[in-house]
């Protein structure tokens, strides 16, 4: 019998604890598949964030560090400087990467640190109970913006990919979404490319993945994905923002 679908070697056998319909499991799998396909699983070291994916390390069968909130790019830098031939990545949410850890992500990118950052943007704080994130859309209601995000006092959603692509050093910056199968395929390509860039020692790579939070958005997964497409994609346009690798276009 031919096996046509199996668990990636880089994933552990632990069942995901995420809420029903959450996108983290899908994105974890794409990361794991990328490591396996590039044959770097056994030399990979992950850095988990604080947020819903704080236990990301439970789902990967690779060495892992679990960083303080927002500091994953700094922790990843420390690891990478000790083991420059290993593959080091951080996996971060929007509160971690775009609020408390803004300095760390900007400066890791600006140094051209040869690491990969997978940034999951679902426009809300999940683990703490649905508070406003730096990427929350204007008008969007959350636990701490009950009247909707008011741009006058709370500002506008921060666009990490655009911001980081203004820097000189980063090798690869892309934003993808996983709201339908076509985009899922593109997301996988971008994530794999980001790790490939690191493997080829071409410098800093960053992939922003737009995702849903059915629990805190108060929407079932199908509806949530539709909402993402209609509301988030116009604010966070998809595409490759920076590619200095000289490789073929991935999207």
């Amino acid at each position: 019998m031919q096996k046509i679908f199996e668990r990636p070697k880089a994933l552990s056998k632990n069942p995901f604890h995420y809420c029903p319909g959450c996108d983290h499991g899908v994105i974890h799998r794409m990361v794991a598949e990328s490591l396996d396909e590039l044959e770097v699983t056994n030399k990979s070291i992950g850095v988990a964030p604080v947020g819903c994916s704080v236990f990301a390390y439970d789902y990967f069968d690779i060495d892992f560090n679990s960083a303080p909130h927002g500091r994953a790019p700094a922790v990843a830098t420390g690891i990478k400087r000790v083991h420059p031939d290993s593959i080091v990545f951080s996996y971060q949410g929007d509160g971690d990467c775009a609020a408390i850890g803004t300095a760390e992500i900007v400066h890791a990118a600006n140094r051209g640190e040869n690491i990969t950052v997978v940034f999951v943007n679902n426009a809300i704080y999940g683990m703490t109970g649905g508070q406003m994130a730096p990427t929350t859309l204007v008008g969007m209601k959350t636990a701490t913006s009950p009247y909707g995000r008011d741009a006058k006092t709370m500002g506008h959603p921060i666009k990490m990919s655009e911001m980081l692509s203004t820097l000189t050093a980063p090798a690869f910056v892309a934003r993808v979404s996983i709201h339908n199968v076509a985009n899922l395929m593109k997301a996988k390509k971008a994530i794999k490319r980001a790790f490939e860039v690191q493997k080829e020692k071409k410098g800093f790579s960053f992939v922003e993945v737009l995702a849903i939070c059915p629990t805190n958005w108060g929407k079932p997964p199908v509806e949530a994905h539709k909402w993402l497409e209609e509301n988030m994609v116009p604010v966070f346009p998809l595409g490759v923002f920076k590619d200095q690798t000289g490789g073929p276009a991935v999207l």
Partner: protein
Amino acid sequence: MADKILMKGNEAIGEAAVLAGCRHYFGYPITPQSELPAYLSKRLPEVEGCFLQSESEVAAINMVFGAASAGARVMTSSSSPGVSLMQEGISYIAAAELPCVLVNVVRGGPGLGNIAPAQSDYFQSTRGGGHGDYRTIVLAPNSVQEMTNLTVKAFEAADKFKNPVLLMVDGVLGQMMEPVQLPEPVNYDPAAKKWALTGKGARKERNLCTTIWLDVELLEEHNWHLYQKYQYITDEFTTGSWKEYGCELHQTEDAEIVLVGYGIISRILKTVVEKCRKRGIKAGLVRPITLWPFPTPSIQKLVPSAKHFLCVEMSTGQMVEDVKLAVEGKKPVYFYGRTGGSLPSDFEILNEIDKIVRPD
């Protein structure tokens, strides 16, 4: 044996770190420790090491966290306000039981304070400093030679006890130039750290570095495990094989008044002891070399023979609390301090001693 050379305290720490096998340094500029990163930015590339100037002390300590988890001998340095910013990371490093060496060239606080020498970070250094039940080992040298020796010992202790070790010096020692004999280079083998994050390679089990134990029972178990380790470290530094780094006793055998002081203060106090003796006052000195664990038993042994204790600090009184805890109210414990960057003179301290031993 190498010849003696003249070195600035901050630079001597840098060279000693390299000789101890440290190949990774992460830090952010702050006065009065700037000579240390400047020295290492030149020195580490010569030995294929990594010097990285971070965007903040917060980032620096997290780079240290990452590098320590990856098995390196790693160091950062800063001064008081910068060390405050590092406390979150130090708590994580202590929780994860990772070895690293931190240097605090203490300056005047609170707030931005000033850049003059002080000892006002004693509480922060010896009580953990960040959140949670943990301790850091705190070494307080009083000369450039001792800064050199203790830097090497700090790396050794960090690896042995899997704990951050803080080298606490003040601005005087950091800036002071003295002759030093550099130690022999250490052959450090990172492969000995089987727990390090290196990539799974041929290992069967992956390695994990985490500080989260959501389960109440598991965190309690972990905290008692840490507590037991701290008890063991305390035994090692007060009565065990690290005792010689616990404290120095100077003319305490017959002392009626026991002076207690560390760092640069201890050098002033040695002069005070000589001057007291010339004037017929039997004075002695306890110089804690390790501030945590505090050399409590050494002080307790003097309680029956001493009449008075006088603790002198460059603060409004922090270590004096540990002296009082050791003396347990059995003898009076006095305090004399200068703060905000001032050093007490031997004359001022002699005056205080006169008030204590000749109250009329």
